[in-house]
């Protein structure tokens, strides 16, 4: 390719781009643009946290503070309290009385999710939540606990899109026990409000020996737990 070959390339790209083809940039404008759309997000993206509940509506959090202890950014503040036996918040002895995450500090490392013994805290795929005050930056139980439909609460400044809020349960834990041969084919996570007990990822069933999903079809093609529906 000589000196002029480069001009031919940019000309071809220009013609294509002018016709609206081949454009790799997604037009993301917080829901205002005509062609507004975001890139698809990976299954296990670390986004804004949710506090999950069991299928009967009980909160999973037991106020053990392991998440606060493991948090490298020290952004989680938890205080546990004893359950009132007559009207328990969680099925155990204690529950998370105060639960706060400061998103000015959170680095979305997901260590709290790993630490949680009850899969109470997990992360959704939402990361587009730019708040405008420090008060808004601190999420309390009122914002974090999932609603009665099992879906995260959607705050006014958060830009939720389809698929951001689903499959935020313990299923996405990286250290879920199915890597252990003893647990192959067994569901290793608790049921969840709005979802019930989710089936294991295909390829980890007892019927089919474990294998990595084929690269060409990707993660999404397997087992119907892809995002976006």
């Amino acid at each position, binding site marked *: 390719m000589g000196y002029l070959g*480069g*001009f031919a*390339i*940019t*000309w071809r*790209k*220009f013609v*294509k*781009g*002018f016709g609206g083809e*081949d*454009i*790799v*940039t997604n*037009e993301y*404008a917080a829901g205002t*643009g005509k062609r507004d759309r975001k890139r698809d997000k990976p299954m296990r993206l670390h986004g804004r946290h949710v506090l999950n509940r069991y299928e009967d509506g009980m909160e999973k959090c037991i106020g053990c503070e392991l998440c606060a202890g493991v948090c490298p950014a020290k952004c989680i503040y938890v205080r546990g309290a004893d359950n009132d036996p007559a009207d328990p918040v969680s099925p155990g002895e204690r529950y998370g009385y105060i639960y706060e995450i400061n998103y000015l500090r959170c680095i979305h490392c997901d260590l709290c999710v790993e630490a949680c013994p009850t899969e109470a805290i997990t992360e959704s795929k939402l990361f587009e939540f730019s708040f405008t005050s420090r008060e808004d930056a601190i999420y309390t139980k009122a914002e974090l606990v999932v609603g009665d439909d099992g879906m995260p609460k959607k705050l006014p400044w958060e830009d939720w899109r389809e698929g951001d809020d689903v499959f935020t349960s313990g299923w996405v834990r990286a250290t879920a026990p199915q890597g252990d041969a003893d647990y192959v084919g067994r569901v290793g996570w608790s049921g969840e409000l709005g979802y019930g007990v989710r089936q294991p990822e295909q390829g980890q069933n007892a019927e089919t020996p474990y294998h990595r999903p084929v690269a060409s079809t990707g993660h999404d093609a397997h087992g119907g737990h892809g995002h976006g529906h």
Partner: protein
Amino acid sequence: MDPLYADGVDLAVVLITLLKVLVAFVFLLVATMFMVWFERKIIADMQHRIGPNRAGPWGILQTLADGTKLFFKEDLLPDKADRRVFRLAPVLAVVPAFLAFSIIPLGGNFTDGDGTVSIFGHRTFLQLADPPVGVLFFLAMSAIGVYGIMLAGWSSGSKYPLLGSVRASAQIVSYEAALGLSVAAVLLVTRTLSTNGIVAAQAGRFIVDWNLVVTGVVPAVIFLIAGTAELNRPPFDLVEAEQELVGGFNTEYSSIRFALFFLAEFMNTVTMSALIVTMFLGGPSGPVFGPEVLRSWFLPLFWFFLKLVLFLFAFVWFRGTLPRLRYDQLMDLGWKMLIPLALGWLLLLATIRVAQHEGWPVPIAMAIALVVLVGAFGLLNLSLRAARRNREHEAEVYV
């Protein structure tokens, strides 16, 4: 000479002149705004991006939004800056950019008319000023513009801006020579310095009588390359090489002062494109037909803008395609390629002119000139090679 001033100056003439000043001013500003948007949009298309699309339809008001934002930004003045010069530099960059545009003929029917239009019963050219030294005026203004850049870097009291402005002055002085020699080719052919006269000289047949063809393409190409360098546009944007010099000569500038530099740069781009159109592509001349309004107003303006946009696109295309030259490559291209080529071509054209004038056989004169020029090029190459050998030898000795 503009027929507007032929019968003395009265109030109407003054008002028409003021109107022309206003129109030229507004036109240049709007064209500059358009150019900024145009460049961003075209570059985006070439790079698989979308480009500005939020402000107005297709983002066409993006420049306005940027300008408004810059207006309200804090105007910083560095501690070590030379205050007065620091404040003067942006003005020195912008004012010549405005003035240079005043000599461009924007319209008027040159094809079968005298290039004048009628405004309120007065015949006048569609150009703000037609000084007898038009092209020299442009060269002078673009040379003064260098002071803006040079003083900006100098007065910032910071090393990167200084490096940028030193590069700027070296580069612009180097390429001014090639630019001037290619302009000389045009002047040789048209026998006038007035831009209006240059356009009128090209007004005959479509394309064939344009200076692009008459001077044999080479001066136009040299002018385009040297003009790009003169504008400090990519691939000659060493002056503000972001990757090397933070931001170049305007690093320490903010707010409206920065905006002025930005504005001046794009105004110069518009002016340079307009000048190429004037010098080599016959300005507003082109096929005209139909009634008087179409003949002397609409079509010439249309042809002019079409050619203008063509060159604006070419400048953007350069930017989208070519990587920035290294400093020594820049100097090599300017001094060892463009200047000898422009000089040789000028001599060739002059030979043809003289031969025609004296009644010598043109082919023989051309052949002799070519032999001389090839010989000269050979000598130049030999000397360049000798110089390189000496340099390498010195490098070995002093390592």
